């Protein structure tokens, strides 16, 4: 009886030891250190992150990524609401550049240590800030239907041309883009949109049509309800792929940049995985995947996009000279009053 008991105890202890060694010896997959949460938009963006970054690059390294999907404003609210917590709920956040600047001003972001990102030397200069890493970028252009708008527009002023009255579409959620366009042709600059307000009021006399979403605008362009609008070039490429008959023109007044950023919250529980993610998303294969599918330009110099794609999504040297970076501090401080003006005065 005693012998039997001893034997069982020994076997039990041996078993524990074997199990422990086995656990320690396994790759880190599934352990807390290798899991991370990414706050991101849903839809294509989330899907492409999985396809181009997570499955091919991070999964083999044993990093499991969970997406916390919501709109940009909701995730910004969450970052601010969680700022007092010692451990936040996300390790990395995808935000528009304007949104990441606002969060930096709110003091919720971790300074980026570029020595921890192997691909950092390839990052284009405008895509690096002390608190954010640019993932993809595009620029604001004029999209037009050549069958309805001829000759091709060259300037934002063409949207105000009375010959095109009734053919111009405006997207409600793109109020900042429209204010930027109006500002650039009325003496304002990226630090003062006030002159643009008066210019936009002139557009009201030209019977423009307003649509609630980007998708509604695409539909209107497709059916010929309108023939011209202001939009990101990348979105124009996606619409072209979907059969919308539009061409893109970089306006002579300037091409306002749109950058999609990644930021690390100060209270991110797994910053090591966040840095691994930043490095993976800058890998040439991942960047080319986004360029080919979504029409956004790579933010690293070592991602060589096929020429045919580059011609459709990129900007010529001449156009690159006209790239304008928005003043994100101005937008962060004024977004609320600009939206209020848009709703109460412009849309009234």
């Amino acid at each position, binding site marked *: 009886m005693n012998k039997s008991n001893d034997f069982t105890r020994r076997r039990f202890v041996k078993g524990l030891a074997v199990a422990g060694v086995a656990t320690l010896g396994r790759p880190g997959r599934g352990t807390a250190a290798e899991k991370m949460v990414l706050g991101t938009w849903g839809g294509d963006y989330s899907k492409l992150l999985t396809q181009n970054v997570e499955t091919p690059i991070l999964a083999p390294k044993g990093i499991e990524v969970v997406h916390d999907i919501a709109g940009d404003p909701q995730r910004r*609210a969450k970052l*601010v609401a969680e700022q007092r917590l010692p451990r936040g709920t996300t390790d990395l956040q995808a935000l528009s550049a304007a949104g990441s600047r606002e969060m930096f001003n709110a003091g919720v972001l971790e300074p980026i240590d570029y020595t921890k990102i192997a691909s950092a030397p390839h990052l284009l200069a405008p895509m690096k800030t002390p608190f954010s890493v640019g993932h993809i970028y595009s620029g604001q252009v004029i999209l037009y239907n050549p069958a309805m708008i001829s000759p091709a527009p060259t300037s934002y002023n063409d949207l105000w041309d009375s010959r095109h009255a009734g053919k111009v579409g405006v997207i409600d959620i793109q109020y900042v883009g429209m204010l930027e366009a109006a500002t650039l042709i009325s003496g304002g600059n990226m630090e003062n949109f006030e002159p643009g307000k008066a210019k936009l009021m002139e557009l009201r006399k030209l019977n423009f049509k*307003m*649509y609630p979403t980007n998708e509604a605008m695409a539909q209107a362009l497709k059916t010929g309800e309108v023939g011209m609008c202001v939009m990101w070039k990348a979105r124009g490429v996606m619409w072209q792929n979907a059969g919308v008959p539009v061409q893109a023109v970089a306006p002579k007044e300037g091409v306002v940049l749109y950058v999609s950023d990644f930021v690390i919250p100060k209270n991110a529980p797994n910053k090591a995985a966040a840095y691994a993610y930043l490095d993976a998303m800058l890998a040439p294969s991942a960047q080319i995947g986004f360029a080919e599918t979504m029409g956004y330009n790579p933010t690293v110099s070592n991602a060589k996009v096929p020429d045919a794609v580059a011609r459709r999504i990129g900007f010529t040297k001449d156009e690159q000279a006209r790239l304008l970076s928005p003043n994100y501090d101005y937008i962060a401080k004024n*977004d609320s009053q600009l*939206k209020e003006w848009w709703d*109460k005065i412009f849309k009234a």
Partner: protein
Amino acid sequence: MAPRRSVAGALVGPATLAVVLGLLVPLAILFRYSLNRFVPGRLMVEALTAENYVKFFTDPYYVAVLLRTLRVSGICMVLCLVLGFPLAYALARTGSRWKSVLVMLVVLPLFVGNAVRAAGWMVMFGSRGLLNTLLGVVGLIDRPLQLMYTEGAVIVGITAINMPFMVLTLESVIEGIDPAIEDAAASLGARPLQVFRRVILPLALPGVLAGTILVFILGMNAYATPILLGGPRFQMMGPLVYGQFAGLNNWPFGAALSFVLMTATLSLSAVSNLWIQRRYRR
């Protein structure tokens, strides 16, 4: 007696707790938020100020949105009552063996979400939609009518969505009215309209009240239909509240808007309830 009461009290307890935790506590938090101050980038700053309410009531834009919401909800409520009453009466009085199928047909639209139904109306109202195409084919119009993104489209959409609630509420009450009372009134010389006005309507009043209040509240809080059929230039309170919370992160003003909307809805429902009850009690 005492143990029975304590058992009853214990049974009411979980529901009361659920209401307190799920409704009253969030409302109290929301009210506290409405007294805070919004600072861009910082979400909200602790304060004890009525400035969000002052902003609402001193700005003609926001007051106009509230009045528009009241107007649209009121019109939808009247349309649901006027169109729904005959349908509810017919359903209540029919002896057909298909009655349960007919009731199911009334309920059927509720199986489809608001957004999906609104999408259907969009296909109908679009400039190249079914309605404009039909009108064009029969030669009544030579250019498409602007049906989408109008108040009319929103009223049609909300009325269609809310109609089943009115019909079902009325039908259950009318079923409880003995048809013999109507026959008695008719045999005493009352014309059909008089029977309706003097007999059926007063007896169906509890259903009318419940139905109108239900439909009015649903109309006041409509979100998907005003967004999809009203378009970006048509504002009602529901989308306005959402825009402040989710678009601008202005929680204090969004919370104040929520309280204005809730107070307006509840007080108007209570006042109309009292007024109708007094009028028909005589």
